[in-house]
Structure formats: structure tokens, C-alpha cells
């Protein structure tokens, strides 16, 4: 493998890893804020217990999200210096705004929330968690706007003199539909993930007979969050798919492994075969669904990979403009499949609970405990799809990934950092998962704080 392949692997590893924790953090930040609001309004102790308990889980995740986020910002310069030079005039701005508007807000107000239980009034303390949660939304918006520029560059002009893209309209970059739809697709997914985490934990509490007073409302709200989020994810996913078909038709064609242009194009749920354009061994396909997803019309024509390849060669010059099609095909399905499975489970459970019952079956509860993994996988496959099926471009139609890598960094250096990051991230994942399990096992009980001569701190490291 050369430096380019290794830099791509490194980006994939560090980014997918980072994004395991981000949605949990965004979603559970708001859910914890909601629980604390319930406590503030009703003064019921069960809500305080739940706030503190889920607050702990939230913070264990947040820590990893923060520290792995630093790498995200610096690896553009380290491994992708040519990319950074090419787009810096545009891409740097939302990144800097993210830091200035969002990271400061999140970190400062979260610090106030964690350590401020006995230093702030109840009301101000409640406000701090809401501000931190809003900070995570802002952060998501800016980074998604930056990514949207890579999917669909707008508000720029290419300067042949410098060989760089130059910003012409920051408003266009920050408000283009590609960014807006990505935001409204990503945020409900984050809520879905957090809802699944809450449900899974509540399932465990029921299984072990812990704090059933808190378990029921947590389970129910978790399930409702999953179902509502899934509806939003579906609606905005449909919106994103149409934008994608218009802006990156090759990506949509790759998502279906559709080689020949077709009207009434079907969407296959499952294919046995090579996905190389030859006839598949076995396939379950829904007629006209792909046409509808792409164009909003069952009779719509969807362009195939082969025609698009010819088109792109005419437009951009000789080259292979096909992404990794099996990867695109399967990651697209796994994204939808895992998300849908979580929503289906939630819907069934809500139906079961409608008359005030709680699921008690051991197998059922164990399945519920595993629920958080479904949206986590769906999130990962969603990003793997959207990034890998844009290839060979890093900025669609403008700049190729292969041209973006740092020319001065050797393959050995990238390999060394990649292996080290991977090992460190692996160890951190084990520790994080262990702490999550441990926190869940300890549960919602709050050990009374001993009082000595000096007033003890409610929160200390």
C-alpha cells in the first residue's frame, strides 16, 4: 500500500470510530437535558436519579468523542495537505466557526454542568446542560456544511492562477440544501441512537429488577424517541436521496449497482452475485422503487453506471469514475436495514406496552439490551456509503482524492501513525465499553454523600 491508500484507511478508521460516539453524545445530551427538566418541573426524585445515571453514560461517551475529535481537525493538514491547500479558502471557515461557536460552548457549559451541581442555582444549572446540548447541534451543522461542500461544491470559483478554489459566498456554503438535508438526516439519527441506548439500558434494569420506578418511563420515552426519529430519518433520507441523484448520480447508481440506465428502476433488497454488472444469481427486488427514491416518480429514469462513466469521461477527461460498487450497494442497504430494524423493534414494543405492561421475557429483554448496536451500525454504514461512493472525488467534480494526499509524508509515517491510532483507539474502546457496562450495573442508586467538617464536593475527579 502506498501513502495514499494508507492515508485513506487512516481517515476511514479515525472517522468511523469518532462517529460511533458523536451521535450517542448529541442525542443523549438532549435526553439528559429532558430528564433534568422533568426533575426541575416535578421535583420527583426518580427523574434526578435518571438524570445523574444517564448523565454518567453521556459523559463517558463525550470524553472519547472529544479526544478523537482533535485528530479529525488536524489530520487534514497532516495527511491531506494538498487537499487543505486546494480547499482551505473555503473549507477552513466552517471548521474555525465550529470551534469558535460550538466547541467553546459545549466544553465550557459541560464543565459547568458536571461540576456545578452545588455551585449554581437549580435553574442556571439546568440551563447549562441545554446550552451544552445546543452546542453539539451547532457543531454538527458546521461540520456537515463543510462536508456538503465536498459532496456538492457551491459558493466558490476556481482560480487558475493559484490553482485553488476560492470562496465567493459563505452564505451559499452554509445554507445549501445538501448541508441542510444532511443535518436533518444526521440529527434524528443521533436521537435514534440515544433512544436505543436509553431503551437498552432500561431493558437491562427490568431484566435485573432494578429501579423499576425509573425503568418504565425511560424505556417508553426511549422507544418513542426511536420511532419519531426514524420517521424523520426516513423523510430526510428520501430528501437527501433526491438531492444526491441530482448532484451525484453515480452515487445513486452505485447504491443500486445499476449498470444500465432504466425507467421504472427496481430497488433490490438483496442480491447474490458479484454486482459487477453481470446477471445476478438471485435477487429480491421491489419494482420501480429506485425510480421513486431517486426522482419522486415511479416511472422516472435512473441513469446507470455505464452511461455515467461515459458522461464523466467526456466531462472530466479519461479516468475511472466508478466508486467501489459492492461497498456502496451493501453499505446503503445496511444503513437502511439496521435503522429500520431498530424502529420495527421499537414499534412492536410500544404496541405491547400500550396498556401499561412491561416486556418481561428474558429473550426479549436481552434483544432490547443489544438494540443500541443497530443504530450505531446504521450510522457507520451511512457515512461509509456517502464518503466511499463519492470516490474517486474528494470534492465532487472538482478535486480527486488521489491529488489531496500530503506529498511530503512517507508511507512509513502514515503506516506508523495509523497503527498507533488504531491500537490506542482499540484499547480506549475496550475501556469505554467496560466503564459503560460498569456504570449500568451500578445503576441509578445514589450513595449518600458523607458530610465531614468541611462541606464535601458533590462532584470531584
Amino acid at each position, binding site marked *: 500500500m502506498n501513502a495514499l491508500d494508507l492515508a485513506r484507511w487512516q481517515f476511514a478508521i479515525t472517522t468511523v470510530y469518532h462517529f460511533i460516539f458523536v451521535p450517542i453524545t448529541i442525542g443523549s445530551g438532549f435526553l439528559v437535558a429532558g430528564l433534568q427538566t422533568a426533575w426541575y418541573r416535578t421535583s420527583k426524585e426518580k427523574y434526578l436519579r435518571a438524570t445523574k445515571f444517564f448523565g454518567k453514560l453521556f459523559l463517558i461517551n463525550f470524553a472519547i468523542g472529544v479526544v478523537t475529535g482533535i485528530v479529525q481537525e488536524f489530520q487534514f493538514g497532516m495527511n491531506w495537505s494538498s487537499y487543505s491547500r486546494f480547499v482551505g479558502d473555503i473549507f477552513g471557515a466552517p471548521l*474555525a466557526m465550529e470551534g469558535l461557536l460550538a466547541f467553546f460552548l459545549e466544553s465550557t457549559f459541560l464543565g459547568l454542568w458536571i461540576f456545578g451541581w452545588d455551585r449554581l442555582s437549580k435553574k442556571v444549572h439546568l440551563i447549562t446542560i441545554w446550552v451544552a446540548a445546543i452546542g453539539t447541534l451547532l457543531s454538527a451543522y458546521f461540520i456537515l456544511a463543510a462536508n456538503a461542500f465536498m459532496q456538492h461544491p457551491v459558493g466558490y470559483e476556481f482560480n487558475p492562477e493559484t490553482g485553488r478554489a476560492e470562496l465567493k459566498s459563505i452564505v451559499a456554503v452554509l445554507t445549501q440544501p445538501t448541508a441542510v438535508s444532511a443535518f436533518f438526516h444526521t440529527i434524528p439519527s443521533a436521537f435514534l441512537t440515544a433512544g436505543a441506548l436509553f431503551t437498552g439500558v432500561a431493558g437491562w434494569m427490568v431484566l435485573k429488577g432494578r429501579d423499576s420506578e425509573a425503568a418504565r418511563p425511560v424505556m417508553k420515552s426511549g422507544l418513542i424517541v426511536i420511532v419519531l426519529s426514524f420517521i424523520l430519518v426516513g423523510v430526510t433520507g428520501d430528501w437527501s436521496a433526491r438531492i444526491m441523484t441530482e448532484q451525484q448520480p453515480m452515487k445513486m447508481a452505485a447504491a443500486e449497482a445499476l449498470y444500465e440506465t432504466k425507467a421504472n428502476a427496481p430497488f433490490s433488497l438483496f442480491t447474490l452475485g458479484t454486482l459487477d454488472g453481470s446477471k445476478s444469481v438471485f435477487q429480491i427486488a421491489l419494482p420501480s422503487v429506485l425510480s421513486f427514491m431517486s426522482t419522486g416518480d415511479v416511472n422516472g429514469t435512473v441513469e446507470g453506471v455505464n452511461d455515467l462513466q461515459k458522461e464523466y469521461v467526456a466531462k472530466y477527461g479519461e479516468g475511472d469514475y466508478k466508486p467501489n460498487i459492492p461497498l456502496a450497494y451493501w453499505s446503503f442497504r445496511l444503513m437502511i436495514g439496521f435503522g429500520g430494524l431498530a424502529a420495527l423493534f421499537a414499534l412492536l414494543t410500544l404496541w405491547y406496552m400500550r396498556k401499561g405492561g412491561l416486556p418481561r421475557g428474558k429473550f426479549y429483554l436481552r434483544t432490547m439490551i443489544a438494540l443500541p448496536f443497530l443504530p450505531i451500525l446504521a450510522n457507520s454504514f451511512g457515512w461509509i456509503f456517502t464518503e466511499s461512493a463519492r470516490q474517486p472525488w474528494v470534492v465532487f467534480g472538482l478535486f480527486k482524492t488521489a491529488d489531496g494526499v500530503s506529498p511530503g509524508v512517507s508511507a512509513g509515517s502514515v503506516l506508523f501513525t495509523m497503527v498507533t491510532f488504531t491500537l490506542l483507539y482499540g484499547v480506549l474502546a475496550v475501556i469505554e465499553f467496560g466503564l459503560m457496562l460498569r456504570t449500568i450495573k451500578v445503576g441509578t442508586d445514589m450513595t449518600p454523600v458523607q458530610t465531614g467538617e468541611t462541606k*464535601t464536593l458533590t462532584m470531584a475527579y
Partner: protein
Amino acid sequence: MSFNSLWFILITVLWVGYFVLEGFDFGVGILLKVVAKNQAERRAVLTTLGPLWDGNEVWLLVAGGATFAAFPEWYATLFSGFYLPLFLILISLIVRGVAFEYRSKYGKSEWRARWDNAIVVASLIPALLWGVAFANIVRGVPLEKSSTGAIEYAGGFFNLLNPYALLGGLTTLSLFVTHGAFFLALKTEGDIRTRSNAIGIKMGLVTAALAVAFLGWTLASLTSKGSVVVGSLIVVTAWLAALAANYKGREGWAFLFSAVTTAFVVITLFLALYPNVMPNITTGGVGLDIFNASSTQYTLKVMTVVAVVMTPLVLIYQGWTYWVFRKRINPNQIANPESGVLDSIHS
């Protein structure tokens, strides 16, 4: 003033913010095992940083992001050029952040001892390497024009470990340790406070010697010295004031003056650099300056509006956090210092 100069100043401000704030974080981390002898004391020391460290570290992220936005060529050359030192800093910051958040979750002594060691090492490495990196930037590094016209770093890893840069690294290391000691003296009670004060004066003298040597060397290698001389004099004066305040037991003033010193070390280095951002040490070679490294005027304008609106706001709410957590921490306030929140397990 051009937007290019304005952004040079703003980047300086961000690095000042970063080193003044995370500087004492590093110092506290390095001193963890020296000033705190038992669990209650260790936890008291870490609790002084608890609500602050993450917000302090964001200054680095914003400095990095702002450099990307305002001077993309600088960002690209610096980060791909100083590859391994930056990687070591990143690894340290990852380990350190996780260590802060996870260490006191369990009471097991091996668990805590491991995280304590991690905190010490992961604070020491960046405190040293940031000085090495900035000294190299000021000194100049070998740069080459590539076939695409980009100005790329052309030295290896060991090129960065020259005596001047190592002296710079030792200076920031020692400065941050002292800054951290002054912070702890101001924020704790009891033995930690006594020990921190004693370390502060000792390390303060070491820092004075290193800083004079480093700034003297910097001055000796410059052709135009005016503003750098002024900056260096402020550094020396503020440092003497910090040491005098520490000697007289005025902990607030000692910390304030060590913050001023740290700020002026950064300002002096940026003054020595201006208008370059990455000078080329190869004779006759082209380096990066605030003009050939910058974004377009439009981007600089947009970012100026954002920075001018947001920075004061950030300073206000971050300042408020420091006010909320202004009280000293006493190890006696740590309830059940030997146990962690995750120790109480049902059967």
C-alpha cells in the same frame, strides 16, 4: 492595517489563550505526583482542573481551525511538515483527556496509578514539544517549492531537534510547570498549597535562566530586533514580578504575572516571526508569510466578522466559569477519596 496582519494578530491571540490556559493544565498534570501524596490530594489537584481543562483545550482547536481558514498554506505546510511531533502531541492529548475523565471512576489503586502516570507523561510531552515546534517556526525550517507550486517542508524529524528548538522546548516545559504550581498554590489548601509554593519558586528560577538564554538566542539571530527586545523585557519583568509575589505569599498576583509572562513569550515569538509565518532557513529559498500563505480577502473578511463577534462572548462565558469555580479545593472536601463512583456494585 491589512486583513492579513489582523489575522496574524488574531492567530497570536488564540495561541496566547491556549498557552496561558492549557499551560497551567500541563503544569498541574506534570506535578500531579509531586504535590499530591495520597488519593484525597490527587483528586483535589485534578478537581481544580475538572471544569476547566476541556474549555482550555478548545483554544488549540480554534487556533488550528483559524489557521486553516486564514492561512491554509501555513496550516498545510506546518501540519504535514511537523508530522511526528504533532502526532505525539495528539496522542498525548487523547490519553490525557481520557485519563482525567476516567481515573476516578474506580477506586482500584492499580487503575488509578496507571492513569496518574498517563497524566504525567501526556502532560509533559506536549509541554515540551510545543516549545520545540514554535522555536523551529521562529528559527526557520528547510522548505522547498514542489512541482505544484506549493511550499513544502523539506527536513526530516531530526532536523526539528536542533539545540535552539530543544532549548525552546525546555523553556516552555519549565514555564508551564511553574505556571501550574502557581495555579495550584492559588486553588488549593493545605499541604498541596505549601508544596506548590515551594516548587513554584524553585522552578521559577530554573525558568528564568532558561527563558533568558532562549530569548537571548532568539534576539542574537534576528536582524531587526526593536519590538522583540520590548517583548523580552516585558517577559523578564513580569516573571520577576511573579517570583516576587510568590516569595511574598501573594498567590493571586504570582499566577496573574506568570499568565502575563506566558502571554508575552508567545507574543514575543510572533513578533520575531512577523510578517513571516514559516521562514525558510535555506539561503535564498522562499518561505511562507502572511501574504503568500493566506486565504483570499473575502474569506479573511468573513472570518473577521465571526471572530470579532464571537471571541468577546467566549471570553465572557469562560471568564464566568473561572468565577463560578473560584474557591480553593481542600482534600478534606473529597468524599470517600479511596473509592470511585463505580465501586458500589449490587450483588
